[in-house]
């Protein structure tokens, strides 16, 4: 008698099983196929082209009614199996029982719905089947409709691209720092994001959903940072979970998925399972390739042939037009690995290979994925690549491959990219001058004025000369930022502005960095450049900061820290002094020192004590003195005209105003000011970065002094009559330094490069520019004029100062 096989779920995995069975022996089983969806098997992965309108549903059906009839499969579609009775060997469907000899569970997986308020509102859907796809198509019919897709993984992005293709306004909300983080690294994630944004899709990373808003249908999404995004449709694509409910009820062994053996048998030898619902050797599955291998094994096991399932590496592609990405193998966890990185900013190409010994174990690429399958083959076959290691990244076609071009970033610039900020000269104008016969820097300066003012763009102008003239121009050797790039600091600063690069990943890619994520030399510089140029858009990255700025305290040689609260303009009160004394007692501070910056340093504080000590000082009204920052340090003052018989103006008052105006701002290096009440100069204003000397008729502002490793007197910038004007000029000067200075150049070094005359012209004489600089400073201060101690002393941040774990007890046992 023919044995009875019941299959629960007509999906992509079971579809293959049936094909193999009927091909090998049509009469072995009498098959009954149940499916919850009211239809038979279709190519689920092609739902995305159906959504975007590139395909009709009929085109993606893999098994139609005729096929099932021809192969003798009894279909019960639109009917869920609710129970498996293993004792009696029957399954219970919504329309009655059926007995089995062998049972195959192929229930796939269920979308994970994040448990936030509003998740059940009409208009909130997942992306799994034809019903979901049709719901999205219907929603897009309304003109001007808005969609929010939660989840920036494979499914979410295909949904977003499809909805956009149908004319909706689409925003993607993604919890992690970059898109598709499980398949892509940051650099590839950046390129993908850029391509999707070019399509008009809005992307929010590091955004977490708090609630879905709406009365009787969805109206918007509320994020944790309190932003509300209006929405007529919300698609949740945050992940899937194996659909194991019937298996759990039947008492089969289930971990995250239904546990199966190499033969694809469950803990009951008469029940097999296949597809996304299974767990094999602690591994789950979410792509079809391994499911097809499983299907072969299932068919053999059912036909009593021996076979065993072996998971292989999988490769991922995204089915969105114009987003060419490829990811395969493993580039997470594991020791002894090495990277090979290739970037071609001109073509928007990024490739990264991960090697372990002589094997290729992972590959990520974006923009040019032609070699993806070749690399994938090397990974799967565990090919020894030691012979081709040097040229591997150029792919199978190499041979003679071009090495990284240090000039690529400049060659890639569009003609309208601004090269010279002072004179507003674009690359196109320089190229034109070269075509008209200019062959050196002097001629370019004479013809276009590029690099003729502050001169910080000289390196870029030379590179344009070199890329345009080829071998006819000899590039003078310039000092690059570090080993990760050939560009100089000045080049990088100009390119960040002219190409509007707003993340470190963008800089690494567009400027052709040779390492995956920089080094300790370039990262702090880039972090500073980005936050200074894009204060509202760029998110400061603590991991790219030197420990002092990350911890907001100076590290000492024994690993303890020092704490220096601000004393505005060097002024203090008995209450502040008492709070400092109390903190010194409470936290056993071994050393209290009066600094050269007119304030008090508490040295030798344990890292774990910092947050609570700050909280105590905050309570007494004190904030961080930034004694650790490349940014505003102190504004020293003298007692001034209130007390001193020679004082001409309120030097203490102006010092306090300046410090309150400038505090918290970051700069290329530390920034110290002083205000003296008369030319006797007791506050030592004439050896500071910016110094003010009060005189009867007003204020003399001088800049570019030094009193550290070099000692140098300041030079007069200008003289003004009012405090307001003094503050505006000092803001503008500070901002000019912030926007143009090379990281780790003190003011005096920067002024030596751009010239004091340039400073006078652009900051003092050009009133519009002065105002614009002061305004930009204010915009930046709207973010950074803030006490970092208060933030780090909060209950979310403070625990991070403690050790992750204390194993001293365990290890002693």
């Amino acid at each position, binding site marked *: 008698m023919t044995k009875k096989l019941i299959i629960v779920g007509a999906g992509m995995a079971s579809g293959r099983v049936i094909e193999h069975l009927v091909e090998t022996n049509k009469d072995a089983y009498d098959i009954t196929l149940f499916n919850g969806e009211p239809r038979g098997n279709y190519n689920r992965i092609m739902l995305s082209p159906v959504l975007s309108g590139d395909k009709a549903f009929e085109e993606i059906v893999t098994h139609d009614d005729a096929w099932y009839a021809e192969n003798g499969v009894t279909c019960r579609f639109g009917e869920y199996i609710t129970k498996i009775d293993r004792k009696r060997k029957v399954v219970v469907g919504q329309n009655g029982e059926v007995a089995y000899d062998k049972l195959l569970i192929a229930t796939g997986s269920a979308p994970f719905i994040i448990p936030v308020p509003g998740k059940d509102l009409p208009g909130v859907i997942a992306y799994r089947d034809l019903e979901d796809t049709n719901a999205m198509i219907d929603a897009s019919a309304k003109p001007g409709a808005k969609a929010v897709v939660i989840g920036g993984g494979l499914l979410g992005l295909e949904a977003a691209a499809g909805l956009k293709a149908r004319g909706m306004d689409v925003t993607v909300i993604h919890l992690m720092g970059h898109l598709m983080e499980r398949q892509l690294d940051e650099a590839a994630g950046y390129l993908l994001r850029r391509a999707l944004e070019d399509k008009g899709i809005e992307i929010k990373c590091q955004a977490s959903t708090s609630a879905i808003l709406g009365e009787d249908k969805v109206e918007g999404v509320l994020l944790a940072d309190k932003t509300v995004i209006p929405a007529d449709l919300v698609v949740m694509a945050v992940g899937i979970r194996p659909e194991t409910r019937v298996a759990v009820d039947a008492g089969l062994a289930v971990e995250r998925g239904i546990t199966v053996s190499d033969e694809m048998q469950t803990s009951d030898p008469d029940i097999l399972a296949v597809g996304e619902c299974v767990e094999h050797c602690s591994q789950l599955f979410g792509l079809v390739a391994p499911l097809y291998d499983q299907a072969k094994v299932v068919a053999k096991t059912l036909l009593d042939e021996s076979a065993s399932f072996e998971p292989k590496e999988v490769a991922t592609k995204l089915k969105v037009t114009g987003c060419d990405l490829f990811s395969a193998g493993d580039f*997470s966890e594991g020791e002894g690995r090495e990277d090979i990185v290739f970037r071609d900013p001109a073509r928007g190409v990024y490739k990264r290979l991960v090697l372990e010994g002589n094997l290729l174990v992972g590959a990520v690429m974006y923009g040019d994925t032609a070699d993806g399958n070749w690399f994938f083959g090397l990974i799967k076959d565990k090919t020894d690549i030691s012979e081709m290691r040097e040229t591997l990244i150029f792919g199978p076609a190499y041979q003679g491959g071009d090495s990284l071009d240090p000039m690529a970033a400049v060659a890639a610039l569009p003609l309208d990219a601004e090269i010279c900020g002072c004179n507003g000269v674009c690359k196109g104008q320089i190229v034109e001058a070269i075509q008209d016969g200019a062959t050196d820097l002097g001629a370019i300066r004479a013809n276009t004025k590029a690099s003729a003012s502050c001169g910080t763009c000289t390196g870029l102008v030379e590179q344009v000369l070199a890329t345009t003239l080829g071998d006819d121009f000899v590039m003078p050797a310039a000092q690059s930022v570090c080993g990760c790039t050939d560009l100089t600091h000045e080049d990088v600063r100009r390119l960040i502005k002219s190409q509007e690069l707003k993340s470190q990943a963008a800089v690494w890619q567009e400027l052709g960095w040779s390492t*995956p*994520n920089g080094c300790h030399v370039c990262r702090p510089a880039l972090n500073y450049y980005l936050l200074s140029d894009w204060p509202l858009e760029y998110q400061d990255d*603590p*991991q790219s900061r030197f420990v002092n700025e*990350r911890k907001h305290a100076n*590290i000492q*040689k*024994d690993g303890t820290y020092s704490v220096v609260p601000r004393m505005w303009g060097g002024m203090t009160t008995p209450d502040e002094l008492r709070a400092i004394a109390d903190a010194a007692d409470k936290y056993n501070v071994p050393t209290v020192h009066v600094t050269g910056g007119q304030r008090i340093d508490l040295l030798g504080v344990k890292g774990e004590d910092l947050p609570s000590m700050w909280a105590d000082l905050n309570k007494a009204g004190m904030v961080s003195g930034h004694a650790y920052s490349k940014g505003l340090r102190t504004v020293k003052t003298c007692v001034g005209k209130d007390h001193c018989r020679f004082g001409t103006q309120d030097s203490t008052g102006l010092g306090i105003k300046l410090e309150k105006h400038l505090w918290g701002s970051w700069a290329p290096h530390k920034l110290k000011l002083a205000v003296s009440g008369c030319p006797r100069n007791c506050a030592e204003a004439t050896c500071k970065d910016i110094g003010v000397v009060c005189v009867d008729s007003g204020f003399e502002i001088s800049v570019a002094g030094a009193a550290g490793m070099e000692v140098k007197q300041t030079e007069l910038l200008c003289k003004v009559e009012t405090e307001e004007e003094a503050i505006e000029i000092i803001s503008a000067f500070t901002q000019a330094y912030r926007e143009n200075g090379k990281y780790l150049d003190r003011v005096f070094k920067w002024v030596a490069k751009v010239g004091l005359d340039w400073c006078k012209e652009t900051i003092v004489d050009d009133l519009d520019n002065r105002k614009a600089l002061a305004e930009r400073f204010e915009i930046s201060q709207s973010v950074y004029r803030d006490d970092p101690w208060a933030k780090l002393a909060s209950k979310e941040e403070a625990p*991070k100062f403690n050790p992750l774990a204390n194993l001293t007890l365990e290890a002693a046992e």
Partner: protein
Amino acid sequence: MSWLDIGSLDDIPVLGARIVKTAVGCVAVFRTAEDEVFATSDRCPHKGGPLSEGIVHGKSVTCPLHNWVFSLETGEAQGADEGQISTFAIKVETGRLLLDGEALQARTAA
């Protein structure tokens, strides 16, 4: 090996580190951009700098005191500097960090 659960991967910032106190001194646990984790001794062989406070880049860390760079995989100082930090076996399972406790003891005995 005896794996000790010391916390969750999310407790460590990407390209950052945290420390674990052990009987053999502080162990620094690093997380790279690709979510790999490495555990090494927290003490720089140069002048004792706390490596967990250094800048993490690629699979290396730069000591915060005088910029020696160490490979997190081998523990070897890079470039011209000569020195070695101990490394400890650590793995991530379902988001939890598991540190090899036996290795920590072995080192005490040694």
